[in-house]
Every structure is written in structure tokens, then in C-alpha cells.
């Protein structure tokens, strides 16, 4: 693996990991909000 390719790959992988986690968090937020709304409705 050549240096410039490794550099690009490292920067891309960093943002894939960070971005992937943020997307996962947003999904969890949506699910918990829905669940809270349902609990409110069921009161």
C-alpha cells in the first residue's frame, strides 16, 4: 500500500467510524422518542 493511498484511507475510515456512530445515535434517538410518545398515549 502506497503512502498517499494510506493517508486517504485513514482519513476516510476515521469519518466512516465517526459518521457511522452519529447515524446509529440518531436512529436510537428516534426509537426512544417514539417509545416515549407511545407511553404518553397509553397513559
Amino acid at each position, binding site marked *: *500500500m*502506497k*503512502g*498517499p493511498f*494510506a*493517508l486517504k*484511507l*485513514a*482519513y476516510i*475510515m*476515521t469519518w466512516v*467510524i*465517526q459518521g457511522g*456512530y*452519529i447515524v446509529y*445515535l440518531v436512529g*436510537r*434517538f428516534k426509537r*426512544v*422518542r417514539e*417509545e*416515549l410518545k407511545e*407511553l404518553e398515549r*397509553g397513559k
Partner: protein
Amino acid sequence: MKLLFRIFIALTVVALAFAAYEGLVVAPTEQTMGNVQRIFYYHVPSAWTAFLLFFANFIASIAYLIWRKPAADAVAAATAEVGVVFCTVVLVTGPIWARPVWGIWWTWDARLTTTLVLWLIYVSYLVLRRYSTGTQTSLLAAALAIFGFVDVPIVYMTIRWFRTQHPSPVIGGGPNSGLAPSMWPPLLWNWLAFSMLAIIVVVARYRLQMMEQEVEARHAQAALQGSTQ
């Protein structure tokens, strides 16, 4: 408060873009390694941020053991999870740098091995929190976090205690260590930007944890009401 948080997010995006520019364009090209050395500007700040997050997890875990406040438990959960994300970046970018420089992806030297162990400790912490169903989960997690944190200073000191394949420290590594002065601003900008990102994600994860605690409490309340009727 919401407006302040949004301004902080906007500032973080600007800081991340500027830090990437500093690391990729402004920083000088290292003489022996060439451009691949620029991975350092993502790898090292991610490691420092992960250490800080694990330290915050350690403090929050002690606070939980003393006061048993759900907020302390939520801070511990948030910092551990975000810390694992940053530690994953360290473990991924390190081998990508090592392949062209050392000719190998991985070696079982002290720094690399203890970092992998650190990641495994905090992944087990998250697995414990996720799949343990007992009422003592937070207590067990806090105890694990306190013992687990012992590995953080060990990881930090490995390149001082042992001769490792990993490069020697750039801070506090002795008279012949250190960075070229022109490499400091890109490094510090990236650390600042990643720390700001970590704050945003920890705050979001903390809110999520508190919401999840509320859902659990309401479910428990509903179940209790159902059983007494």
C-alpha cells in the same frame, strides 16, 4: 440552551474543516515518511480524546458508586461509548499508517497490545451494560470501569517503559524527542476539533441515556400498576 448547542455544533464543523486543512495542507511533509505521516494528525488526537473520555468515565463511575445518581451513570455510559469510538479510530488508523511505514499491519508490541486490551475492556463494559438485565447493572459497570481504567496509564507509559516498535513519545519523551515546531499547530487544532466533536456526541449520548432511563422507569411503573390492579 438549544441555540448555544447549535452554535457550538457549527463551530465544531468549522474547527474540524480547518483542522483537516492544517493536517493535510499546512503541516510540513515529514522527511523520511512523506505524506503518510499526516495520519498522525488524526491518530494522536483521537488517542488523547479517548484517554480523556475514559478518564471522565472513571470519575463518573466513582461518583456513581458514592452517590448512586442516575446522572453519573448516564455520564459514565456516554463517555465509555464515545471513548470506544475514538479508540476504534486509533486502532484502525494505526495499522493503515504502519503498513507503508513498517511493512506490516500489526505487531504484538507493548503499545499496540495494551491499546487493543483497553478497547476490549471498554467494549466488554458496553456489552455488560447492554445485555445485563439485573438491577445491579450500573453498579457492576461502575466497578468494571474503575478497574478497567488502570489500563489507560499503562497504555500511556508503554512507550516510555519498553522499547517498542511504536514511535517514541512526542511529549515528555526525553531530550531527543519532540515534534518540529511547525507540526504543533496542526496537531493541537486537530485535538481541539476532535475534543469539541467528543463533547457534542457525549452530550447527545447523555440525553439519550437519560431518555432511555425514563422509558425504563415508565415501563416499570406501568408493570407495577398492572400487577396491583
